[in-house]
């Protein structure tokens, strides 16, 4: 394919994945000083830190492609809610530690094959990011899968909580594998990742780990969508109010 690639498309694509990383890192950071043990406090912060790093790379690149003078912070902090294109899964709140584990695991099982595939993008910047992020996310997946197994196969209470979290969040997993027009254009150009094609790897990981965790895999029923179009849950507004607080209260300053 030698179609002329629209830079704006690549910028939108980078922002979309940056949003997943940023919003998930925000939810992880909410555990600060609140995790079940000190070691886990540090581990969750470590994941959050990796995700912020990924978001920064993606936003900075998007800003360069746009050429309108937006830097990583203008993109991260000054958009309207409708312009955030993260998946609904990553914005779901920390109901309890089991939710945090389930959200992380369901996302990591997706983002590992995603970044592995992105590593062969024809876009050199995205490919380099894919390679780096895949290494980080491999560790994230190990961490979240270990917890899923421990909690699923731990006590009656932890099993019940873990199953409830998986059941509740399952409805947000379908959206991860939907290709929209932007995806299709970039797949055709050899730049984007075919999300539908990641489903079988995700299925394998999820089934294997759920089984080891003695948890039931929920049926694939109705799936919630909207995040990729900027239609979010009610939680998102509060998350952004906090995330954007400084840039909204003190616009156009250097920090």
């Amino acid at each position, binding site marked *: 394919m030698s179609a002329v690639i629209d830079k704006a498309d690549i910028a939108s694509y980078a922002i979309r994945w940056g949003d997943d990383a*940023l919003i998930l890192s*925000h939810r992880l*950071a*909410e555990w*600060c*000083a*609140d*995790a*079940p*043990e*000190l*070691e*886990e*406090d*540090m581990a969750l*912060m*470590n994941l*959050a*830190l990796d995700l*912020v*790093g990924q*978001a*920064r790379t993606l*936003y900075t690149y998007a800003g360069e492609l746009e050429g309108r003078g937006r830097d*990583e*912070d203008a993109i*991260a*902090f000054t958009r309207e809610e409708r312009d955030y294109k993260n998946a609904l899964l990553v914005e779901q709140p920390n109901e*309890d*530690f089991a939710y945090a584990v389930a959200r992380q695991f369901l996302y990591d099982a997706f983002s590992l094959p995603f970044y592995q595939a992105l590593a062969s993008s024809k876009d050199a910047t995205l490919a380099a990011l894919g390679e780096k992020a895949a290494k980080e996310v491999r560790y994230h997946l190990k961490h979240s899968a270990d917890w899923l*197994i*421990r*909690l699923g*196969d*731990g*006590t009656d*209470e*932890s099993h019940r*909580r873990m199953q409830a979290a998986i059941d509740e969040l399952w409805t947000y997993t379908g959206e991860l594998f939907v290709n929209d027009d932007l995806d299709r254009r970039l797949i055709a150009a050899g730049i984007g990742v075919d999300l539908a094609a990641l489903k079988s790897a995700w299925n394998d990981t999820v089934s294997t780990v759920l089984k080891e965790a003695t948890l039931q895999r929920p049926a694939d029923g109705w799936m919630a969508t909207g995040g990729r179009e900027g239609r979010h849950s009610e939680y998102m507004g509060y998350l952004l109010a*906090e*995330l954007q*607080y*400084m*840039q909204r209260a*003190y616009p156009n*300053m*250097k*920090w």
Partner: protein
Amino acid sequence: MYTQGLDIPKGDKSIPVEKADSAEALRFQARIDADEKIEPKDWMPEGYRKTLIRQISQHAHSEVIGMQPEGNWITRAPTLRRKAILMAKVQDEGGHGLYLYSAAETLGVSRDELVEQLLDGSAKYSSIFNYPTLTWADIGAIGWLVDGAAIMNQIPLCRCSYGPYARAMIRICKEESFHQRQGYELMLALSRGSAEQKAMMQDAFDRWWWPALMMFGPHDTKGDAEGIKSQHSEQSMKWRIKRVSNDELRQKFVDVTVPQAEYLGLKVPDPHLKWNAETGHYDFGPIDWNEFKNVLIGNGPCNKKRLKMRREAHERGAWVREAAMAYAAKKAKRNAA
């Protein structure tokens, strides 16, 4: 570290003042005097062991509680770069807590016991973390002043007589000095910013300056009528757990920090502050020991909040820790079968 409050209050009889005339005690003191390191398996006086457990565990608790006021701004950091720096810093502080609990465990006490003492309110942590972080500038003030004061306190402890503590301090000091530079750099950005940013910085400085000076603890020599002077300071000096007096460290901190504040365009909130050419030090005004004592006994702005959050996090996490133990037991059983 956050040594303030680590001194043992008057009337506390839980730590015996040693009679140092046994053969073992004399040999022990001779080793200390020769600047040898004491290691976990070595004989040590009970008072030495207890003093160290108390000091190291209070230091560990301070690192852990200190994650709260700084964590308060992670989700609101103004830029992604600042967010990442703050996340890494708070993560470091958690790591300091872990090394220090391990160092305390070498003295024959478990981390669980120590955490229990924190949660039931019988163990202290540094009072500095009982002050609130009200604006973003407070994050700069903490890094610059609190980590800065911590370094002053800790550098001498890298030569502490107890090996595991001294080694933990060496590692921790490196990271604290990194935090101090990052805090100062945050302030520097504000000092070059808008009028609002400058006002935010001055306000944070006004609120953190005196608490930072209090971090060095009560006066060593004068004692005071309030009954907060450490009785055990001398003993700790002799054992080389403590190597420099509170007042010397505080003076050093003032001497180093005042020019930094001036460079930022800050006004030090002390009408008595004046360079003394004769002594080669800054003279500064009296510390409000009444405030110090009040925060120490629980009346600081955030004492209740900090402890409540720690307790609630611990309680909320109980089912997770139980599950992890249950799983480990099952796994061990399966592996044995």
